[in-house]
C-alpha cells in the first residue's frame, strides 16, 4: 500500500493521507479540558446513588425507605415496587421494573422479587448532592431472606440446583437463546469426532485433551459508567449525556425501554474515558437516571463508584473450556474439538450479534490448516453479574485464540517439538486465501509464515532457546511463549449480523464547505482511539484536503447519522470504509462540477491527490477547494449535482476483515516464590493498511498490557457465599508501568482485499493475542517441573502451586 514517505505534507506538516501525525484530541486532554460525563453539570441538576444487594441470592421480604426519604436533601427514593407501578407503553413489558438485554433476555432495573447477584440494583436515591444520596443509602432498611446461591458454573445444571430465573418460570439454570437453542454448536461434530477417534487408534498419531479456563475478568476503564439525563417536560425532549460506545443503538433501546418517541431522544456521548466493551450494554443505572428525571422534572446525574463498576457492569470471559487436539506424530494437526461451559451470570446481558450467541468463539480453529473442527457451548445462569462479551474481546475471539494457542502448546509439549516449529508446519499458506475455515469463516488475506518469521527474527528466537538451555542447566527458569492469532472483526454484513434487530451497517456524512474545508459526521464513538485524527486522514487520503481542514464530529445522535458504534474493532473496518466511500462519492461529484467549469466531459478528467485535471493537460484543472466554491456558485451545474458536494453513505461490510499477528513473550520465573517477570514482549501485527501507525502502535501497546494483566494478575473470583472477591482496585489487580516491559513492535502489511483502503482494524488484536503468549511462556518455563497447564491468572501463589503439581481452580476462592 501507500508508503508513508510518498504522502505529501500539508502546510501544518501533517500527512495528506496515511502516516503518523499528532492527534487532534490531545490539545484538550493535556490541558485538562476533556469533557467526560462527570464533567457535565446542568442547572438545577440532582445527584443519585444506587443501593446494591449485599447478597448473591436472596428474596426481598421488605424495603423500608422512610428514614432515607426523611433525610434533608433527599428528593426521592425509588424501589422496584414503585417501578412496577409505572406503566410502560412498550412491547417489552408493561412496567419499568424490568428491561430487555441486548440478548433478548430480561434484566431487573431494580429488584422486585429476588436479588440474583451481589451488587444488584435494589433502590435508587435522588438527592441534592452525591454525599447526601450516599448517606441516604445507609438509611434504607432491606430485609432479605437469604437463598443458596449458584456460584460454581459446573454445578449450575445439577438436579436440585437452586433456580435463579424463577421470574421466567425456569425449572433449571439453562439459557435459551432467541432461536430456542440451549447449546450453541459449530463445525462438523461427526467428522471431528471420527478424526479424533481415528487418531486415538493410530499409533502414528496423538490426541491431547486439556481443561482450560478463561476466568472472569473486568474491562475496568479508568472512567466508570455514568449518565446525566434531562427530560424537558414542555418539549418532551430527553437529553442524555452518557458513557456509551454506541450512542445510536442506545437511543433506540431507550426508545423501546422507556416508550419515549425516538425523535425526542438525544444521546450525547462526550469524551469517554476508556470503554473496552464495558460501555456497550444498557445498564440499570442509565435507565434509573432517565426515570429520575421523569420523576423529578430535573436533570439527574448518576456516576458509578469503582466498586459498583467492578461488581455490577459487564464482566468478560468466564469460559470453562475442554479442548482436544489430534495430530500426527510429525506434528500435522488433524482436528480440534472444544467443549465450553459458559457462565453468563444472572441475566443474559451479552452484547453481540443475535445469530452469534457465543460471539465469534467458533473462529477457534485459528491460523492453522486442518479440516475438522467442532465446538459446543453450553451457557448457564449463575448468581453473578451479567455480561461476558467485553474487554476488547472481538466478540469472544479472546477465548478462541487463547484455547487454540494453549492447546497447540500442549500438543508441542506432548510431541516434544518446538512450539514455533509446530506452528510453522501448520500455518495457513498465502495461496489458501480467501480461506474458508472449518467452522465457516472466510479469512480475507494473510501471509502468516512471513509474519511469524519477522517475529522470530526480532526476538532472536534460536538464541533465546540457547539461552534457555544454558539457564536450565544452572537451575534458572526462563520461558519463551508464542501465540499466533487470527481475528475476524468489523461486524458485520447486515444479512448475518444485527443487535436487537439493528443491522450492523454504519452511516456517515461528509460536508464540504464553500471554502473547501470539510466536516465528517460519524456514527461510531471514540473512547480514546483517536477518531478525530484518523478519520480526517482517511478523507484527506481520498480528497487531498489537509487533515487539519477536516473536522470530525461524533458522539451526538442529533448531529450524526445512525450506526451501531465502536466495539469489536469495528470502527476502521466499517466506519473507516464508510469514510472512504463517502469521500469517493464527493470526488465523483466534484468531477462533474469540474468538468462543467472546464467545459469538458467528466470522462476527460484525471484525478491526482486533491485535484481533477484535463487528461494530457495537467495545467488545466481544479482543486477540491476550487470545485467546492464552484459547486456553491452561479455556475450552471449539469445533471447529477444538486448544488454542493455534500454526500452521505451507509457501509454494509461485504464480509469481516481478518487481522492477525505473531507474539513472542520471554519470562523469567522464580521457582521459590512463583514470581513471573515479563522480560521481553515482541508483537508483530498485520492489520492491513495502517492509517496512522503511531495510533496503531499505541493501541497494540495497550492490548499487550491487558494480556500481561489477565495472564498474571486480573481476576474476578467469588467465594461460595457469592461474595465478589475483585470488587476494588486493591483486589482487582491491574498492571502498572513496572509489570509491563518495553514492548517491541513489528509489522507486516497484508491489505484486506475487500476493504476500500485495505485496513483491517487493530483495536483488540493485542488483547486477543497476548494472553496466550504470556501463559505459554510461563508454562514453558515450568515444563522441567512437568507442568503442562495452569489457568490464568498466574499469580505467584498459583505458579508456586503449579510447580507443586497442584495448580489452582481460579474461579472459586480456595476453600
Amino acid at each position, binding site marked *: 500500500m501507500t508508503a508513508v514517505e510518498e504522502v505529501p505534507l500539508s502546510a501544518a506538516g501533517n500527512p495528506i493521507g496515511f502516516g503518523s501525525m499528532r492527534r487532534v484530541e490531545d490539545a484538550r486532554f493535556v490541558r485538562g479540558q476533556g469533557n467526560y460525563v462527570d464533567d457535565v453539570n446542568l442547572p438545577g441538576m440532582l445527584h443519585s446513588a444506587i443501593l446494591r444487594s449485599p447478597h448473591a441470592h436472596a428474596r426481598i421480604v421488605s424495603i423500608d425507605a422512610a428514614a432515607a426519604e426523611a433525610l434533608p436533601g433527599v428528593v426521592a427514593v425509588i424501589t422496584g415496587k414503585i417501578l412496577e407501578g409505572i406503566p410502560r407503553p412498550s412491547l417489552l413489558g408493561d412496567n419499568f421494573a424490568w428491561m430487555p438485554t441486548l440478548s433478548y433476555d430480561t434484566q431487573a432495573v431494580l429488584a422486585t422479587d429476588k436479588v440474583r447477584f451481589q451488587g444488584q440494583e435494589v433502590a435508587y436515591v435522588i438527592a441534592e448532592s452525591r*454525599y447526601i444520596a450516599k448517606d441516604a443509602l445507609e438509611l434504607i432498611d432491606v430485609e432479605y431472606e437469604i437463598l443458596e446461591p449458584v456460584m460454581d458454573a459446573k454445578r449450575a445444571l445439577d438436579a436440585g440446583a437452586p433456580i435463579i430465573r424463577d421470574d421466567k418460570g425456569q425449572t433449571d439454570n439453562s439459557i435459551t437463546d432467541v432461536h430456542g437453542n440451549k447449546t450453541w454448536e459449530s463445525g462438523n461434530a461427526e467428522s471431528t469426532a471420527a478424526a479424533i477417534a481415528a487418531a486415538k487408534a493410530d499409533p502414528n498419531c496423538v490426541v491431547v485433551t486439556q481443561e482450560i479456563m478463561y476466568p472472569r475478568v473486568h474491562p475496568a476503564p479508568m472512567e466508570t459508567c455514568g449518565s446525566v439525563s434531562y427530560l424537558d417536560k414542555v418539549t418532551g425532549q430527553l437529553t442524555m449525556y452518557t458513557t456509551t460506545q454506541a450512542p445510536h443503538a442506545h437511543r433506540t433501546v431507550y426508545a423501546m425501554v422507556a416508550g419515549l418517541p425516538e425523535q425526542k431522544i438525544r444521546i450525547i456521548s462526550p469524551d469517554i474515558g476508556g470503554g473496552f466493551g464495558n460501555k456497550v450494554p444498557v445498564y440499570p443505572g442509565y435507565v434509573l437516571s432517565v426515570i429520575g428525571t421523569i420523576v423529578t422534572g430535573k436533570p439527574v446525574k448518576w456516576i458509578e463508584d469503582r466498586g459498583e463498576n467492578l461488581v455490577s457492569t459487564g464482566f468478560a470471559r468466564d469460559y470453562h473450556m475442554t479442548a482436544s487436539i489430534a495430530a500426527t506424530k510429525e506434528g500435522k494437526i488433524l482436528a480440534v474439538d472444544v467443549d465450553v461451559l459458559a457462565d453468563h451470570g444472572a441475566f443474559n446481558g451479552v452484547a453481540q450479534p443475535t445469530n452469534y450467541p457465543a460471539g465469534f468463539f467458533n473462529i477457534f480453529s485459528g491460523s492453522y490448516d486442518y479440516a475438522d473442527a467442532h465446538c459446543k457451548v453450553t451457557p448457564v445462569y449463575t448468581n453473578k453479574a451479567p455480561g461476558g462479551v467485553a474487554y476488547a474481546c472481538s466478540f469472544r475471539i479472546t477465548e478462541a485464540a487463547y484455547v487454540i494457542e494453549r492447546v497447540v502448546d500442549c500438543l508441542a509439549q506432548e510431541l516434544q517439538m518446538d512450539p514455533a516449529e509446530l506452528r510453522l508446519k501448520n500455518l495457513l499458506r498465502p495461496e489458501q486465501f480467501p480461506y474458508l475455515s472449518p467452522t465457516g469463516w472466510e479469512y480475507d488475506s494473510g501471509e502468516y509464515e512471513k509474519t511469524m518469521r519477522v517475529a522470530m527474527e526480532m526476538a532472536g528466537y534460536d538464541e533465546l532457546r540457547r539461552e534457555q538451555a544454558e539457564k536450565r542447566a544452572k537451575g534458572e527458569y526462563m520461558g519463551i511463549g508464542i501465540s499466533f492469532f487470527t481475528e475476524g472483526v468489523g461486524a458485520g454484513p447486515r444479512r448475518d449480523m444485527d443487535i436487537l434487530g439493528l443491522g450492523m451497517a454504519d452511516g456517515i456524512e461528509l460536508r464540504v464547505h464553500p471554502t473547501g474545508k470539510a466536516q465528517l459526521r460519524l456514527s461510531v464513538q471514540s473512547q480514546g482511539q483517536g477518531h478525530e485524527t484518523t478519520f480526517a486522514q482517511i478523507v484527506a487520503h481520498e480528497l487531498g484536503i489537509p487533515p487539519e481542514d477536516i473536522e470530525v464530529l461524533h458522539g451526538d445522535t442529533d448531529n450524526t447519522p445512525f450506526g451501531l458504534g465502536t466495539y469489536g474493532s469495528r470502527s476502521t473496518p466499517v466506519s473507516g470504509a464508510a469514510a472512504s466511500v463517502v469521500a469517493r462519492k464527493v470526488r465523483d461529484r466534484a468531477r462533474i462540477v469540474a468538468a462543467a467549469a472546464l467545459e469538458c466531459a467528466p470522462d476527460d478528467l484525471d484525478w491526482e491527490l486533491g485535484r481533477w485535471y484535463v487528461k494530457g493537460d495537467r495545467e488545466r484543472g481544479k482543486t477540491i477547494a476550487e470545485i467546492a466554491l464552484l459547486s456553491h456558485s452561479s455556475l450552471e451545474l449539469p445533471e447529477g449535482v444538486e448544488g454542493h458536494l455534500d454526500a452521505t453513505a451507509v457501509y454494509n461490510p461485504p464480509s469481516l476483515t481478518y487481522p492477525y499477528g505473531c507474539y513472542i513473550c520471554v519470562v523469567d520465573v522464580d521457582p521459590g516464590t512463583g514470581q513471573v517477570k515479563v522480560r521481553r514482549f515482541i508483537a508483530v501485527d498485520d492489520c492491513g493498511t495502517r492509517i496512522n501507525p503511531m495510533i496503531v502502535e499505541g493501541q497494540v501497546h495497550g*492490548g499487550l498490557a491487558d494480556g500481561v494483566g489477565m495472564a498474571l494478575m486480573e481476576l474476578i473470583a467469588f467465594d461460595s457465599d457469592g461474595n465478589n472477591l475483585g470488587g476494588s*482496585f486493591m483486589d482487582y489487580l491491574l498492571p502498572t508501568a513496572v509489570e509491563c516491559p518495553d514492548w517491541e513492535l513489528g509489522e507486516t502489511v497484508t491489505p484486506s482485499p475487500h476493504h476500500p483502503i485495505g485496513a483491517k482494524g487493530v483495536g483488540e488484536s493485542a488483547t486477543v493475542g497476548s494472553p496466550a503468549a504470556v501463559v505459554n511462556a510461563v508454562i514453558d518455563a515450568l515444563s522441567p517441573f512437568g507442568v503442562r497447564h495452569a489457568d490464568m491468572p498466574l499469580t505467584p501463589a498459583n505458579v508456586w502451586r503449579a510447580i507443586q503439581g497442584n495448580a489452582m481452580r481460579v474461579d472459586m476462592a480456595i476453600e
Partner: protein
Amino acid sequence: MEVTITVNGTPVTSEIEPRKLLVHFVREDAGLRGTHWGCDTSNCGTCVLWVDGSPVKSCTMLAAQADGHEVTTVEGLEQGGVLDPIQQGFIECHGLQCGFCTPGMMMTGRWLLDNNPNPSEAEIRDCISGQICRCTGYKNIVASIQWAAEHPATSEVTA
C-alpha cells in the same frame, strides 16, 4: 466549615462539609474538571495533583486538610498560553489515548523531572507505578516523560 485553598495561584474560599474530599473541592468548588476521580482506594492515581508542590492522590485527602495550602492541578501546567514540556511530550509521543489518566500522569511526571531532571527509564516507571493507565501500556507515557526531560526549555504551542 470554611476553607481557603490556593488553587493554581488563586485563593478559593468555600463553605464545605468537613468530610469533603479534596478531589471534589477542586472539581466542584474550584470548578476545575481536569483532575479526575477513578477508584476511591488510592490505587489508580487519576486524581493526582500537587499539594505544596508534591503529588497527592486527592481522592484520599480531605479538602479541610488542604486548608491554607497551595494546590496545583493540570490546569496550572500551561503558562501564558505556552504548554509545559510535559504536556508537549505527551502530545509528541502519543502518551495518551482516552485522556482520563493523563492529568495525573503529567502531574507526577512533571514532579519527577523537577526533582530528577534526567531520570532513567526504570526511575520513570517506578515513579508512575502508583497510577494506572488502561490504554497505552505505559511505553509511550515513559517516552513522553523522557521527551520532556530532553526538552526542558518551554515549548512552543503546537497543538
